[in-house]
């Protein structure tokens, strides 16, 4: 039977090469948004579960990344945060820069940074070990996620259509992120539901 087992395994191998492994991707629109529990800059614990029933928007941020700087300091992101929190959206800014890396600030300093960039999110959360970023397969800052009231991820991707760190491009760009939030607020599926995010890579801890 040993021989036949080898044959079977060769066959299986061929099948696996031919048809691919069964792995499903986290953070694909249409799947449940991965649960998380993170502390905000005031030490308050925020869980995704506690936000069920509300539309949740996440922007992954690193205030020192040129792309985030452009979107924050041009007023683009603070305006979106203000506009949509006024409409009942829970906006979370998540910082995943590891200690010692660009964009890392201890909670107290982060609070000052929030004021500086005029962050108007509901909560600013810290994910210093990058675990939530990994669970969301977040790659860049900025990167936008929109989660509907049922906790299903509806949008994952770029904030807009023109990869750029220059504010002049804002007016020409299609605001994919804002369009997605509008769609989800209206109970529709965003289109596109996924785009390639652009920006700086997330500063994960050295492994």
């Amino acid at each position, binding site marked *: 039977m040993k021989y036949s087992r080898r044959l079977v395994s060769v066959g*299986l191998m061929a099948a696996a090469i031919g048809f691919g492994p069964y792995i499903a991707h986290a953070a694909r629109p249409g799947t449940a948004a991965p649960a998380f529990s993170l502390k905000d800059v005031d030490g308050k614990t925020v869980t995704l579960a506690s936000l069920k029933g509300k539309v949740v928007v996440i922007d992954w941020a690193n205030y*020192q990344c040129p792309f985030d*700087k452009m979107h924050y300091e041009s007023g683009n992101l603070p305006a979106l945060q203000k506009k949509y929190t006024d409409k009942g959206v829970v906006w979370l800014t998540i910082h995943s820069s590891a200690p010692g890396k660009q964009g890392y600030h201890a909670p107290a300093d982060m609070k000052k940074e929030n004021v500086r960039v005029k962050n108007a999110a509901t909560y600013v959360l810290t994910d210093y070990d990058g675990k939530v970023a990994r669970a969301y397969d977040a790659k860049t800052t900025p990167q936008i996620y929109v989660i509907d009231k049922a906790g299903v991820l509806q949008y994952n991707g770029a904030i807009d259509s023109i990869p750029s760190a220059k504010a002049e491009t804002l007016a020409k760009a299609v605001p994919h992120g804002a369009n997605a939030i509008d769609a989800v607020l209206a109970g529709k599926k965003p289109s596109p539901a996924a785009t390639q995010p652009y920006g700086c890579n997330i500063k994960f801890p050295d492994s």
Partner: protein
Amino acid sequence: MNRWFLSLCLMLAALMPLRALAAERVALEHTTASLVSEYSQIDGQIAGKSPFWVLFRLDIQEGWHTYWINPGDSGLAPSLEWDLPEGVQAGEIVWQPPHRQPFGPLMNYGYSDVAYHLVQITPPKEGLKGSLPLKVSASWLVCEEECIPEEAELSLTVPVGEVSVASAQSEDIKRLVQTASLEALPITELTSDETSLTLRLPYQGARPQDLYIYPREAGVIETVAAQPFDLKDNVLTVRLTRGMLEVPDAFEGLLEVRDADGLRHYVITAPDVSPVSASADVGTGFWLILLSAFAGGIILNAMPCVFPVLSLKALAISRKAGQGDAHIRRDGLAYTAGVVISFLLIGGLFLLIRVGGDAVGWGFHMQSPLVVTALIYLLFVIGLNLSGLYDITLSFGGGQSLTQTDGWSGSFATGALATLVATPCTAPFMATALGAALTLPAIGALGVFAALGLGLAFPFLLLSVFPALLRKLPKPGPWMETFRQFLAFPMYLAAVWLLWVLGQQGGINAAALVLTGLVVFTLAVWVWRRVSGGKVRVVMAVLIALVSLFPFVILARGGEAQVENTGTAFSTDRIEQARASGEGVFVYGTAAWCITCKVNERVALDTAEVEAFMAERNITVIRADWTNADPAITDWLAQFGRNGVPLYVYYPPSGEPVVLPQVLTPAIVREKLS
């Protein structure tokens, strides 16, 4: 405080990118940008007829890098905005093959040290006079771990004269044009499912030691995932893990190959037939697929596995030459229905299994020794019937009932049988259609199966719709009995072939078992014919026939016994306990239906080598079997951002857990667990 200061500087630097004055060469903080031309003087007469090259060059500070057209998971490709005299055209950037720059779970594609961007300049048709000023606003992102946008205005004036004069950089530019002009390999087949993207390319040469495909569009693949490949008969098959975005219709990219001759690059270009991606709209691509499925079905008629059954059908149909056209037509339709419905059933099963999360291929049911055994019995029994050993009308085409009015059910059954035996065969065109069917929505996939069936049934359907064709066949007569008996032999041969398949699956024991079953079945037939005495005869024959089915029971049991069960059952407490006692823990997520998991277990985890390695290091092995839903395991998978198996995680006695790749070898396991 220091960090604050640094951040401040970086902020200032980014707020006020150093906008240098226009020059041929501009030195910035992390890069030096320059613009050079192939010619130091250009011939004003021939200018319009021959474009020439300029080079935008970035010399990059050590440890920093810039990006390719697809920057990978983050970053940004340089952009050039030209300001040229009227009538002068600048082409797109012609890129040099990039390098990979891994950053933890992310990967970038780009250049370190120096990045070359070739651009072709086309002067106006009417030629040039005086001089040709070339101006460009360039902006690019340069990153170490942090990213800084830089930009510069570069300008270069090429004097126009009587002759063209090569510049000092002309040789370098020629060399770069060479390294950017890559041999193109057309993708012959591109299939994708939910998670992977498989490419096939014609490839001459030895098996590469290593390769990597850089897609031209970002987000299409997981950049850091392994790209397993296989080279067989000059066809290179590479499997990529899909990223978040849809696979573009025209998938393009670069193939980097490392072998004994060193590193080489090829351009890979989209296949001729537009591929169908997972949620592609049903469009023109779909009709092409249906067409190739239909063509594949027609060709299937000539394949060795179908031929014996079809000869029967031919026989049956030739008997009908004398009958009414309406009758023949009904018969042809019944046969077609038999084929198409059987294909749809197989297709439905295919889709159900796909929903279950397993990966299946054409003829997947042949992987089951039980199905193979059932086919052996069927072919053997039909063979006995054709040989005239018994007269039970099986209506499979050779029997009497075909001449009777209820012949349609026989035709239907012939269709079903033809489909069943056809499945192990693949005809040209079919592979593409089936590959696509795997990725289409359910309705589309069933459409492909129906088209295949229609193709298989088509020749007979044609005969029955135009019965005049039938009259051209030989007239029925005693020759038909001889022909019928002769046809038993292809049946037996087909059974022998299937026995060989079974032997591969279950070994010599399984083959012997099934052969014994066939002999016992023949005994049942013999009893039926020879023993007299009404009920006793029937009971005896049926009993013996039942006994002849015992191989099924044994084979079915054997299938279960093969499931391995190494490792302790999963629970988060167990992981904690083992870690608390200072032991390393290896947890593997698996499921009976997960082919990759099983391959990894057979190839790596269940080998003596790895088992000894685990024992030696005192590593607790925990098996997270996800065959059936298990919320604890689902949560555990989610911790690592997964919602599927396989997942292999090693928890060292202290420190962060290590996630192993999806495809394992004993060497990988040893390396990651050390």
